C-alpha cells in the first residue's frame, strides 16, 4: 500500500468502529443500557442542542475556563518574566512554587469552597490555580533561554531594563510562553470539567455527571461528544493563533531543519 493510500486507512478504521458501535448498540452485545447505538447518541445530541440545554451548560463552562485562563496567563507570565530575569526572585520563590504546584488541583477545590462557596468564583479560581503553573514554568524557561550576549549587546546600546524586557526578552521567550499557553488550554478544560463534577449546579461537567447519575446514558455520551468537539475546536483555534503570532519563529525553525 502506498504511503498516501495508507492515510485513508485511518478514516476507514473510524468508519468500521462507527458501524461496530451502531451494531453493538442495536444488537445489545454489551449491556444495552450502557451502550446505546451511535445514531441514538447523535439524535440525542441534536435534540439536546436544539433545546439549547447543552449549549447553555457549555457556554457557562467556556466562560469560566476563559476567565480562569486569562487571569492565569496574566499572572503567570508576569511572575515568570520576573523569576526568569532576576535570579534572586527566582531563588526566593522557587520552593514555594514547587510545593504549591505539587498539590493536585482537585484537592484545592474543597479548600477553595470554604472561601468561595460553590459558585463561579470557585471554578474560575481552580482553573486559574491549575493553569498558572505550566505557563509559569515555560515562561521561566523561555526567559532563561535568552542569550546573555544579546542582553549585553542591548545594554551597550543604552537600552533601559524595561525596553530590554519588551524588545528582547519577550520575543525570545515567546515560543516557550506559547508552549505553556498551549498546555494550559488543555488544563483549563480539564479543570473546568473536574470542578463542575465536584461542586456545581451547572456546566458541561455537571451535565455529563448528572446524566450518568440519572441514568440518561445517551445524554451522557452526547455530552462527551460535545466536549470532545469543543476541545478539538479550541485546539485548532489556538493553532491558528499560534501560526499567526509566531509566524516568524515557525519560518525560522523550518529553515533550520
Amino acid at each position, binding site marked *: 500500500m502506498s504511503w498516501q493510500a495508507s492515510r485513508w*486507512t*485511518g478514516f476507514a*478504521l*473510524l468508519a468500521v468502529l462507527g458501524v461496530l458501535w451502531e451494531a453493538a448498540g442495536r444488537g445489545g452485545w454489551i449491556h444495552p443500557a450502557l451502550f446505546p447505538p451511535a445514531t441514538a447518541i447523535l439524535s440525542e445530541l441534536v435534540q439536546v442542542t436544539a433545546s439549547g440545554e447543552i449549549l447553555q451548560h457549555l457556554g457557562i463552562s467556556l466562560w469560566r475556563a476563559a476567565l480562569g485562563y486569562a487571569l492565569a496567563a496574566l499572572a503567570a507570565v508576569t511572575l515568570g518574566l520576573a523569576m526568569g530575569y532576576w535570579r534572586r526572585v527566582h531563588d526566593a520563590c522557587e520552593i514555594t512554587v*514547587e510545593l504549591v504546584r*505539587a498539590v493536585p488541583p482537585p484537592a484545592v477545590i474543597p479548600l477553595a469552597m470554604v472561601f468561595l462557596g460553590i459558585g463561579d468564583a470557585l471554578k474560575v479560581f481552580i482553573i486559574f490555580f491549575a493553569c498558572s503553573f505550566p505557563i509559569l514554568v515555560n515562561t521561566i524557561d523561555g526567559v532563561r533561554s535568552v542569550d546573555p550576549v544579546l542582553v549585553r549587546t542591548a545594554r551597550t546600546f543604552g537600552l533601559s531594563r524595561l525596553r530590554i524586557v519588551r524588545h528582547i526578552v519577550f520575543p525570545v521567550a515567546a515560543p516557550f510562553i506559547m508552549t505553556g499557553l498551549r498546555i494550559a488550554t488543555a488544563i483549563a478544560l480539564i479543570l473546568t470539567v473536574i470542578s463542575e*463534577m465536584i461542586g456545581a449546579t451547572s456546566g458541561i461537567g455537571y451535565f*455529563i455527571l448528572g446524566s*450518568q447519575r440519572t441514568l440518561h446514558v445517551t445524554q451522557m455520551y452526547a455530552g462527551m461528544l460535545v466536549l470532545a468537539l469543543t476541545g478539538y475546536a479550541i485546539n485548532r483555534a489556538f493553532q491558528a493563533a499560534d501560526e499567526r503570532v509566531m509566524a516568524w519563529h515557525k519560518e525560522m525553525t523550518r529553515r533550520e531543519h
Partner: protein
Amino acid sequence: MLAACLCAWEAWALWRRDLAAYFPPASEVMVELVRLVASGELAAHAAATLRRFAEGYAIAAVAAVSAGLCLGLWRPLYNLFEPLIELLRPMPSPATIPIAILFFGIGNEMKVAVTVYACSWPILLNTIDGVRSVDRLLFATAATFRLSGWARFWKVVLPAASPQIVTGLRVSLAIALILVTTSEMVVSNDGLGYYVLESQRAFRMPQMYAAVVALGIIGYALNRLFQALDHWVMAWHRGLTRKEEIL
C-alpha cells in the same frame, strides 16, 4: 520565602481569630497533620490513593510506551490510528469518569481505569514524537555498521527517543495524581481525595488542611523521586537541549 509565607499564614490566622473555623493557623494544621499520621488515620487513606496512583501509572506507562514505540516506528500503523487519536485526544480525561462508573462501578477498578486512560495520552504522544524525531542520520549510521533491526531498535532508536519518553512520563505523573484525586472526590469511601472532601463537608477544617498538605507533600516527593531517577538514567542528556512537552 517559604518561611515568610508560613509566618504570614500563622500571623494572619492568629490575628483573625474569628475566622479560626475556616482558617486555622499553620501550627494547628501541622499539629493535626502529625496527629493524623501518627494515629494512622491518614495513612490508610494515603495508602489507598498511592496504590491507585501506582497501578494506574504503571499500567499506563507500560501500555502507552509500547504502543507509542509501535506507532512511532511503523508509519502505516500510525496512519491507521491517527484519526482515532486526533478524535479522542481533545476530550478532557475527567469526562471519562461518569462512563467509567457505568462500566466499572464505583470501586478501585473505576479509579484505576480512569487514571490509566488519562495518563496514557501524554506518554503515548511523547513517545511517538520521540521515536519520530530520531535523526535520520542515526538510522544511516546503524545501517552502515550493519545493525540488525532489533539491535538498531535497542541500541539506537530507544536511547535516542528516551528523553522525549521521559518527558511524557513526567507529565503523566501529575496527571495521574489529579485523576486519582478527582475520582476519589466524585465517588469513593476512602483515599485522600475523599478525605479532603469529607472533612470539608463535616466542617473539620484542620483535618482538611492537613490532608491537602499531605497530598502536596506526596506530589512533591513523587516529583523529586522522578527527578532523581531522571538524573541518574538520563545523565547524558543534561548536556544537550531540551525538547518541548506535549500534553
